[in-house]
C-alpha cells in the first residue's frame, strides 16, 4: 500500500483514505460562455496524460476531506511531493525526478517532502 503525505494532516497516510481527482493546475477560462467549442473542449476534456511526472489533484476524502495537489510519477506510481491547493507548481530537481522514476530510490530529501514509493508495513 502506498503512503501519501497529506499537506493538511501533515503526515503520511494510507492510500485507502484518498481519491484521485484528475489533473491539477487547470484554470477555468474567464468568460466561459464566450469561448469557442474548440477552446472549451481543450479546457474541459483534453488532458496531457504524460508518461513520467504528472501533477494531479488528490482528495483526502476519508481524512480531512481536503483537495491538494501532488507530483507523481505515472509509471512508478511514486509521489515526488504533495502541496496544498492554491500553491504554485513546485520546481522539481533532477534528483527528485530520478528518484521517483522506476528503479529510482527515494532519497532522504524527497522522503522529507512526503515521498512514498515504499510499501507500508
Amino acid at each position, binding site marked *: 500500500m502506498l503512503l501519501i503525505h497529506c499537506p493538511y494532516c501533515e*503526515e503520511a497516510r494510507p492510500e485507502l483514505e484518498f481519491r484521485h481527482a484528475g489533473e491539477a493546475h487547470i484554470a477555468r477560462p474567464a468568460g466561459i460562455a464566450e469561448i469557442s467549442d474548440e477552446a472549451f473542449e481543450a479546457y474541459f476534456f483534453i488532458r496531457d496524460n504524460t508518461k513520467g511526472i504528472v501533477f494531479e489533484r488528490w482528495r483526502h476524502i476519508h481524512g480531512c476531506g481536503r483537495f491538494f495537489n501532488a507530483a507523481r510519477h505515472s509509471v512508478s506510481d511514486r509521489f515526488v511531493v504533495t502541496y496544498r491547493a492554491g500553491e504554485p507548481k513546485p520546481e522539481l530537481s533532477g534528483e527528485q525526478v530520478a528518484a521517483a522514476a522506476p528503479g529510482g530510490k527515494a532519497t532522504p530529501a524527497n522522503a522529507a517532502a512526503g515521498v512514498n514509493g515504499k510499501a507500508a508495513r
Partner: protein
Amino acid sequence: MAEAARIHPLAGRRLALPGLSLEPCPPAERLSLRAGEDALAAIDEALGLALPRRPMASATAGGLAALWLGPDEWLIVADEGAGLAGRLAALTGIAFSAVDLSHRNTAISIDGDKAVLALAAGCPRDLSPAAFPVGACSRTVLGKAEIVLAREAPARFRVECWRSFADYVWNYLVDAAKSA
C-alpha cells in the same frame, strides 16, 4: 397517542473475549462544526473548551470532546442533554456551521490489549502509540466503512461510524476480534 421509542442501532450487543471487549457507546449528542479562524475564539468560549488547532488532536472538558477532523472541521461529542446546538445558537456576528449529527452516528468502544490488533484488520492506519497516541483522533476507514477513530486510553478506542454502517462495523470488529 403512540410513542415512538428510539432504538439504539446496536442495542443489546456486547462481546467480551480475553484481552478484548466490544461495547456500543451510549447515545450522545454530536455536532459537525465547520468554522474559520476568526470564529474560533467565540466558539471556544460558548463550548467552554479550546478547539484543537492541530491535526489529529482532540480536547475534552466538561463532558465535551472536540475531535479535529480537518483544518476547519471538528466533531463535537457530548453526553445526551448537553444542549450543544443551543449553546452555539446564541452566537451572533460570526459565520460558522454547526450541524446536529446525534442520530446519524453511533459509536463502539473497543477496549483491551488486543484492540489494536482487531482494528488493524480493517484500518490501514499506523496505530502504534508513537504514531497514534492517547488523545489522537482522525477520520479513516475500517473495511469499507468510513469511521472516526479516537484513542481514549492506551488500549481503548472509540469508533464512530454512521448509524446505517453500525451493523457492518460491529460485525467486522467481532470477526476481527475473534481472530486477533
